């Protein structure tokens, strides 16, 4: 099974109910509006560290995650806020996380959307690109070994495909026929590096035969096409037929992070994608003209999203900062607590004198 091909155009996704069709829009809208809120908070310096956008890639994240069942597991990357929302992450969690609050999912330990929850079925990524592929090979190996009817999905960017970890992980999963879907989000750039300097391949989907797996390619800005292709890959995995590589072609309209001015992008390229190929605009058009939804349905979602984000922001802003000593908890199951170093004994916190180092101005970590 090494055939690579474009998945069929998917303007009539008969398997989705009308509620689901609207839901897709809800998740995309929520993703975009939540990020817009984060931009405001970033400008107010309430965000600690960098801010990463998925503007223009909402369809890719939402449509692919939507193809999973609740019991399935996915591993998101920095531009998969939409996937995480679909999988059950809440705006409140995201906001607390970006503001490094004590009651955020990582209690202030990790950056931005680097968090997970195995109950809801998403795994906290680390920064080192590619590493989640072997990890998801192992997650799905466990499904196979236990005979569980569960599937895993891991995202990699066009840039991350160059890492050794990606290669080792996808190959391992392919040989073991793990129930895994590998989504390559080809958004044209890795930081400033265009795809042409990342690989000499014509398409990322051309990598599939080299691993003896199925390959599919879809328009990443068409949420229904994304859903359809991913669903096909998920079904393949669920049927015990192993790994599929799904290439989603999309475009990163913002810089790598908020500070990046995208000087390396050819004149007009961003505007063209924004004008002609915005995934939300496109889907609204489909909903209205092809699927027969009225303007009220769309407006209703927008209102709901706005209210939800406002409420979440209010609550997140009330969230406490972490207690300094919480940093010592839980490196190991046993011992549960790292010792306080001798020169701190009896001192409330490191910073009860004056010093409080500032983050470095334009520093953006991922």
């Amino acid at each position, binding site marked *: 099974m090494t055939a690579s091909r474009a998945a069929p155009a998917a303007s009539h996704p008969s398997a989705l109910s009308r509620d689901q069709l609207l839901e897709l829009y809800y998740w995309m809208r929520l993703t975009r509006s939540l990020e817009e809120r984060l931009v405001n908070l970033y400008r107010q310096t309430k965000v600690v560290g960098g801010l990463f956008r998925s503007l223009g890639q909402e369809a890719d994240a939402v449509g692919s995650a939507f193809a999973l069942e609740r019991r399935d597991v996915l591993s998101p990357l920095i531009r998969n806020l939409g996937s995480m929302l679909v999988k059950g992450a809440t705006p409140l969690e995201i906001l607390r996380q970006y503001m490094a609050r004590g009651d955020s999912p990582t209690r202030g330990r990790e950056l931005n959307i680097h*968090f997970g929850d*195995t109950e809801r079925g998403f795994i906290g990524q680390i920064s080192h690109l590619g590493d989640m592929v*072997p990890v998801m090979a192992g*997650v799905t190996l466990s499904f196979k070994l236990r005979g569980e009817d569960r599937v895993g999905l891991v995202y990699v960017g066009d840039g991350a495909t160059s890492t050794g970890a990606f290669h*080792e992980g996808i190959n391992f999963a392919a040989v073991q026929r793990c129930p895994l879907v590998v989504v390559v989000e080809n958004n044209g750039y890795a930081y400033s590096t265009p795809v042409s300097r990342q690989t000499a391949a014509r398409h990322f989907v051309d990598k599939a035969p080299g691993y003896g797996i199925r390959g599919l390619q879809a328009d990443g800005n068409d949420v229904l096409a994304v859903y359809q292709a991913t669903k096909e890959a998920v079904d393949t995995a669920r049927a015990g037929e192993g790994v599929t590589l799904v290439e989603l072609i999309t475009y990163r309209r913002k810089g790598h992070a908020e500070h990046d001015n995208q000087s390396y992008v050819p004149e007009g390229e961003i505007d063209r994608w924004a004008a002609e190929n915005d995934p939300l605009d496109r889907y609204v058009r489909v909903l209205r003209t092809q699927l027969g939804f009225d303007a009220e349905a769309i407006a209703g979602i927008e209102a709901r999203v706005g209210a939800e984000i406002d409420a979440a922001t209010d609550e997140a802003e009330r969230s406490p900062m972490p207690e300094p000593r919480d940093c010592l908890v*839980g490196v190991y*199951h046993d011992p549960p607590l790292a010792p306080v170093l001798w020169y701190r004994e009896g001192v409330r916190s490191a910073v009860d004198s004056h010093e409080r180092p500032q983050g470095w101005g334009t520093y953006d970590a991922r």
Partner: protein
Amino acid sequence: MTPAEAATGEITYLEAIREALFEEMERDPNVFCLGEDIGRYGGAFKVTNGLIDRFGENRVIDTPISEAAIVGAAAGAAHMGLRPVCEMQFIDFISCAYDMLTNYVATARYRAFLPCPMVVRGPSGGYVRGGPFHSQNPEAAFLHTPGLKIVYPATASDAKGLLKSAIRDEDCVLFFEHKYLYRRVKEAMPAGDHIVPIGKARIAREGRDLSIITYAATVWKALEAAEQLEREDGLSVEVLDLRSLLPMDDEAIVATVRRTNRVLVVHEDTETGGIAGEITARINDLAFEWLDAPVKRVAAHDVPLPYAPALEDFVLPQTSDIVRAARWLAAY
């Protein structure tokens, strides 16, 4: 080798490891092994020999040559409730999984509350003419990674007891096996479910005049030296076998310093950057007043480990080195 057979007599360090794997796989269906050539072939050193016959291909998994994937996949499986035991064909190849271990695995619990109970084990160490890439002692490279545990047994019963503890541990344990000891040391196993706790050192020999703190193969060299020093110099040398390197048994270290007031730290790794530095710092920190002499190190020369016998023997610490160093220290 069944548990019944084993109870009747002495088994080697290598067989002790196999016995631990066997017993833990019997006890807990979540335990499984993965690595290169560990299935039908039984592993390069035959440590996993026979496991596949008993537990089948799903629990003794031959992998591609992909150390990062082996470790990463183990982590993923561990998150889901399994208990993977990874074999590195030689521990030298753990370097290929360095990122995965130090960044992904070690931090999983802390940053993401993901349990990651897994073991990475493999043949380590020199004295076997393995050359620079089949003789390494990688422990020092992992010592500054909170989230990992490191053990390195010297005896057959510790190998068994520590591996069983490692498999039951809720976090990732690096289990270094000294290949020079695989078939050279033998012991009868304690009866029953033999467990050696992680984090506890062992006094391998009691003494009053001087302490040698060490682990793995050099425990045996230290014991040889201690005997010679007793015989030829009337010196009473204590040998402390650390067994666990992370966490380290500070209590036992302090106790031996207080007893003898003179410490020689011995290890097979290079002197610079080896674990002796950490041990020396801890002694300074916790028992400086008890020192009658500087803490001294006997370790490998700071060069890649060469292959020819005459070269390897020169680079690595030998019993005669320990004897000379101990005499100097005793006379200080």
